[in-house]
């Protein structure tokens, strides 16, 4: 090869390298808070992420570096001004695959308006990646009237319009074209319609479905208190400050969380916990004490889920420990240093032998393991922990049946193991007693969890019964509001569950229904004129004497899986719809596939919201679920006429 040619070759190779370098560039693949400006290059409203003035949230970006390169510095700019992190509250972390996650923790902004967020990430060869997004700081009208001192969110999990209607027909009755009486919910003066989509789906699950009310923002399904990121760590996601923390910090309010679910479940946890995994287990419950008690003024926590609070080392029959709990090594939480610094939270620990009940008691909590424990309260308690079941609490249908006749224990229920579980209205009563001791007020979430769970299971009688139980909890809150007018009550759901429809009524008596051959069961469904008005009777305890009345209400499910329908109460609890009544019912085929989805599912249908008390007037029209948060915060911060 002549020198001249070899020189050309070297030049060509050099040129190729130069060309390669010219095309290689780090890129920003994610920018939090989420925005349409970043994802779709769309700067117009609606703005995806909104915050209260001074509400804290994390800034986060994922940067794809060139192969073998490192991101050495990252600058976040809000409206062109670089954001300075508090000491230790920022990090650039390699997350594998030449990707880097950059964070600034605990950012806040007190000036209302839409802000442009730019991230500039510099690679070790000086190449720079940029990304642009936006977020909005909501405007709060100050001195707009009296403030809502107390805010009560009542979430009927999965409760759409038809769930309410069914509860009204059964508990209040209807005749000659009118309901005989309204539900307690119906007496709230303001009604709105809420849209429920999550950040990554038109159909939300319960985590983002509750997260929206606690933070004012959207989340991915399965995630609560955080925005999505690109790491496998459950605890390092960009956080958004919860309402409980914000109101504790700015107004000294207390927080209460009451649910008939396992308290580790999505809806209760979405009001105090920050994780990308709604099933994170023990760590979620540890976080209630370590973070929520300390920073959110959590004073009441009640529900099921005792298994997460017990130590693992149940040796030699002295106690089984965390029965069916999460992993002993992977379920606990440990948060990275920048989260600790930015949010003033402890690191957490992998401590499977932690006795969390004892730690709550050490922190001043009165512990009630059952209704008797609740009733033994002296009235002076200011902190209350109630754990009434190992998992979800049993439903009111079975709790009431057991109270009426102690020998009545439905197969599949845990009544025999936990026979003295309180009803939601009893839990509500005690929670209000404790929380109302705070002169600065409180915010409380009360969840009727199994309206959803039994709608999933297409166990009509049990979800209707729990919707009635939920209404009784609402009645307790309305009575409290009457005595404490600066209280805002919001009754809504997180999503609709199962596509419930009241399609008619039985054309036969219950006796006739019981003797109807399986092949003729379909024929008893009366529609239009044949549906009539079923007559349920209410016992002295306030619940239906029986759900199996003559000419009963008929429920259809649009978001369903296969089930065998008898049109009567199931003697068993929590038995799979595909295994229940296989010989006594007829097969109604559903639409949901797979063994992972053996039941009815959530739908994207809008949900009703009813409100009463201070600030309730704002909850009219059709609005997004995150809007409900800002309407409530206007009432709490700026007041309302």
């Amino acid at each position, binding site marked *: 090869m002549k020198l001249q040619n070899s020189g050309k070759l070297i030049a060509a190779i050099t040129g190729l390298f130069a060309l390669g370098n010219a095309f290689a560039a780090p890129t*920003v693949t994610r920018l939090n808070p989420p925005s349409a400006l*970043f*994802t*779709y290059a769309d700067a*117009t409203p609606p703005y995806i992420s909104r915050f209260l003035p001074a509400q804290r949230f994390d800034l986060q970006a994922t940067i794809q570096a060139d192969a073998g390169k490192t991101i050495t510095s990252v600058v976040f700019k809000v409206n062109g001004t670089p954001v300075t992190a508090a000491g230790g509250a920022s990090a650039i972390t390699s997350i594998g695959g030449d990707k880097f996650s950059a964070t600034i923790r605990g950012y806040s902004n007190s000036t209302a308006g839409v802000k442009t967020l730019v991230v500039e990430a510099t690679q070790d060869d000086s190449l720079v990646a940029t990304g642009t997004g936006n977020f909005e700081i909501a405007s709060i009208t100050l001195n707009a009237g009296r403030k809502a001192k107390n805010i009560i969110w009542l979430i009927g999990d999965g409760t759409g319009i038809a769930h309410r209607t069914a509860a009204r027909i059964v508990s209040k009755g209807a005749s000659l074209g009118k309901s005989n009486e309204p539900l307690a919910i119906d007496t709230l003066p303001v009604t709105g319609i809420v849209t429920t989509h999550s950040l990554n789906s038109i159909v939300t*699950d319960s985590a983002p479905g509750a997260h929206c009310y606690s933070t004012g923002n959207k989340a*991915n*399904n*399965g995630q609560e208190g955080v925005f*999505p*990121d*690109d*790491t*496998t760590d459950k605890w390092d996601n960009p956080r958004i400050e919860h309402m409980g923390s914000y109101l504790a910090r700015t107004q000294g309010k207390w927080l209460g969380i009451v649910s008939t*679910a*396992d308290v580790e479940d*999505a809806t209760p946890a979405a009001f105090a916990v920050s994780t*990308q995994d*709604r099933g994170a287990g023990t760590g979620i419950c540890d976080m209630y004490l370590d973070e929520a008690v300390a920073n959110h003024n959590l004073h009441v926590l009640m529900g099921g*889920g005792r298994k997460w609070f*017990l130590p693992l*080392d*149940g*040796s*030699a*029959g002295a*106690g*089984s*420990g*965390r*029965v*069916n709990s*999460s*992993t002993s090594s992977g*379920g606990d939480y440990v948060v990275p240093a920048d989260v600790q610094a930015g949010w003033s939270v402890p690191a957490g620990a992998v401590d499977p032998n932690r006795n969390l*009940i004892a730690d709550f008691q050490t922190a001043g909590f009165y*512990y009630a*393991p059952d209704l008797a*424990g609740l009733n033994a309260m002296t009235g002076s308690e200011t902190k209350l922990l109630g754990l009434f079941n*190992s998992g*979800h609490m049993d439903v009111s249908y079975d709790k009431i049946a057991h109270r009426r006749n102690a020998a009545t224990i439905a197969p*599949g229920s*845990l009544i*025999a*193991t*936990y026979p*003295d579980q309180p009803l939601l209205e009893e839990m509500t009563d005690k929670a209000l007693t404790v929380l109302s001791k705070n002169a600065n007020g409180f915010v409380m979430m009360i969840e009727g969890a199994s309206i959803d769970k039994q709608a999933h299971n297409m166990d009509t009688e049990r979800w209707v019964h729990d919707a009635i139980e939920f209404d009784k909890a609402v009645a307790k809150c309305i009575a409290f509001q009457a005595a404490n007018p600066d209280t805002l009550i919001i009754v809504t759901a997180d999503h609709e569950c199962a596509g419930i429809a009241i399609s008619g009524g039985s054309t036969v008596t219950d006796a006739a229904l019981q003797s109807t051959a399986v092949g003729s069961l379909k024929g008893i469904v009366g529609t239009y004129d044949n549906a009539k008005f079923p007559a349920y009777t209410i016992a002295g305890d306030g619940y239906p004497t029986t759900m199996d009345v003559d000419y009963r209400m008929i429920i259809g499910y649009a978001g369903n899986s296969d089930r065998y329908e008898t049109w009567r109460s199931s003697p*068993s609890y*929590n*038995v*799979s*719809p595909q*295994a229940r009544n296989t010989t006594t019912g007829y097969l109604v085929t559903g639409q949901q*596939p*797979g*063994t*992972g*989805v*053996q*039941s009815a599912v959530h739908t994207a249908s809008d949900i009703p919201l009813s409100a009463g008390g201070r600030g309730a007037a704002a909850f009219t029209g059709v609005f997004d679920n995150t809007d409900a948060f800002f309407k409530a915060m206007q009432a709490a911060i700026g007041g309302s006429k």
Partner: protein
Amino acid sequence: MNLKSLSFVLPVILLTGLGLLMLAGKDAATVAQNRDSDAAASAVASPVVPYEDSSSVALKFEEIFVMPAGPKGLEYTAKAWALAGKRVALTGFMLRNDNIDPAIFFFCETQHAYDEREEGLADSLPPSLVQVILPVKKNSAPAWRQEKLTLYGTLELGPRQEQSGRVSHIRLQCDAVTDAATGVPLELRKPVALQLGRAIPIPSDLGALPPSTTPPPFFNPRRNRNSTTHHPDKL
């Protein structure tokens, strides 16, 4: 091979393949639906002789923990604790779920509903849930059956972390599965590939949306219009 012989061989191959597919389909459908005929088929394949194990002690689910539970948690009964490490017989139902461990299935007193996608580990499953461990059979896993079963094996008590993320407290090292009604031995382990009802485990959500497959120009769902600048893999 000439055309004539091909015309003979090809249909034979196709028919054989079709027959195999039908057999596989039948097996899969049987596993998925768990009809009584499956038990009958198993019974035909095995000698119709009820399983006998005089060394096992019958243990009921309600005999495992002291009831009601105390304020601090559950306690094993004296009977259960005395049977730890010994042979027992348990009668109940398989739980239908997407167990990721091919050697283990859940066993409980009733035909319990369990929707993993919705419930995760916050569930209504009874504390007396038993994790049953079967000897591993290559490429096979326990296939759900609807009927009541009686299991025989060695009882283990005490906490142990499982692949599924649970901490089990009651386990059965199972060596015999029978139909509870007839006592006829059953083979639960079926090839995973043929278990149509066995859903693919849902991967944990790492927070990232999968990259969009939508080709540019990218459709902006917010504005019902096409956008030339887009970030299909961004959120």
